[in-house]
Structures are given as structure tokens and as C-alpha cells.
């Protein structure tokens, strides 16, 4: 049970990082922490104590195996996270080029 709670703690740390930090790069890192917390949680759901990988091997009967579906789903979700992070970094570089700062409080041309 405690590992699930730790995942939620990690999620909240990431959320805090996104909401409170002023540096754009730190916000992107915070988003990464959120994603990893969710992915970790998803993988832990499929974990079985003393389970093994669900791969057929010669002359072995598999009695207790780890649920492979969350692992496949997390792989997809990691790729999505990669795409989002790359896009955000590219936008952050562009923002630095236009505004000359990474400080989110100084990047406020849009309001109202």
C-alpha cells in the first residue's frame, strides 16, 4: 500500500513544481515528474509478488506472472511524454529567443 501512496506523493510534488515554480524549464521538469508518477503507479498496479515475466520459455511452467498489459500501456504513455517534453522544450527555446528570459512572471504579454 505504501508504494501507491508514495506515487501520489510524487504526483503532488510534480503538481507543486508546475504550480509554484517561476522558471519555464523547472515547469517542464515538474510535468516530467507528474508523468513519471502516473507511469510508476500504472506499472505497480500490474506487479505481483514473486511474479515473473510472462514470456514462454522452454520446459518451464509459469505459475505466477506479472500483468504485462500495464507495461505495454506505460510504454505508449512514455512515448507520448517524450513527444510532449520535446515540444515544450522547443517552445521554451523559442520563448527565450523572443522574450530573453525564462521567468514566467515576466512573460505576460497576453492578459485579460
Amino acid at each position, binding site marked *: 500500500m505504501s508504494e501507491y501512496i508514495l506515487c501520489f506523493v510524487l504526483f503532488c510534488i510534480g503538481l507543486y513544481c508546475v504550480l509554484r515554480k517561476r522558471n519555464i524549464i523547472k515547469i517542464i521538469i515538474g510535468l516530467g515528474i507528474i508523468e513519471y508518477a502516473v507511469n510508476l503507479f500504472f506499472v505497480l498496479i500490474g506487479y505481483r509478488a514473486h511474479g515473473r*515475466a510472462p*514470456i*514462454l520459455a*522452454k520446459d518451464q511452467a509459469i505459475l505466477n506472472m506479472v500483468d504485462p498489459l500495464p507495461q*505495454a*500501456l506505460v*510504454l*505508449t504513455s512514455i*512515448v*507520448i511524454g*517524450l*513527444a510532449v517534453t*520535446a*515540444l515544450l*522544450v*522547443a517552445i521554451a*527555446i523559442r520563448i527565450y*529567443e523572443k522574450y530573453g528570459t525564462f521567468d514566467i512572471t515576466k512573460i505576460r504579454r497576453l492578459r485579460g
Partner: protein
Amino acid sequence: MKNPEKGMTLIVKTITRLTVGLILLYGIYIVLHGHISPGGGFAGGVIIALSFIHLMLAFGKEVALKKLSQAQASILESLGAIMFLSIALLGFLGGYFFFNFFLHKGSPFALFSAGIIPLCNIAISLKVGAGLFAIFTVLVLFTPLEINRFNKDNGNNSNK
């Protein structure tokens, strides 16, 4: 290699020259054995992309881009996606989208089995490898005032 000022020191360059081919081969191995052992299109594609990124880190961007330029990477990426989609479309031969239309029953531990899954793995590895390399080069080559749109969406509804 010819230009000693570019890139890292001699030690790094020598080691890279020795290992980069092995890394590439390992990536191809992972891709081809994706259906019978852990790994697959995505993991293998990442390793293939890493071999090129390794080259770029050690020798500077010119050497790596001579081997695989950005335009080529983007073409390979699109080709991978179209290949994957056409494999899926060929499934209509068997009546269903994504149908495993030839060598229907896979046999364990046989490399040439499992129908379309190895082909899908190859398509995914093309897509992921070229895509990851393109992302890296776009972020490395970034120069101001360069009109360069990023297409980062890896279209990954596929590699489950």
C-alpha cells in the same frame, strides 16, 4: 575524423569508432527479435537513434548529419508510418483491419514466425529511430530566425 578540432577528445573518438557499429547492430537485433524476446520496435528504434546521437556527440554534428541528414530522417519517419499503416491495411485481405494475414499461427522461439508482427516492428523502429534522431537534431541545430516547424508527434497509437 579528419577535423581534429571538432568534437571531443581522441579517447572518446576512438572508443566511439569501435562501439558505434556494435550499438547499431544491437539495435537491429532488438528490432528483429522483438516478437520472441523482450524489446521490439520501440526499444530497438531508440537504440538505433542513440547510435547516431552518439556519433554526433563524439564527432560533432557535421559527421553525423553526413551519415543521416535531417531531411532524410524526416523522409524515413514518414515512410515508417506509411509502412505501418499499409501493413495494417493489408489486413483487409484477411477480412479485418490489422488482421494477421500471413503465417497466421506463430510458433515459439522461431525467428520467422508470428506473421505481421516482425514487419510492424521494423516499421515502428524506422518511425521511432528517425523521429528521435530528428528531434535531437532539431534541438541541436536550433538557430534563431530559422523557419523550422517541428513535427514532434510520433503517432504512437501503434507500439503496444
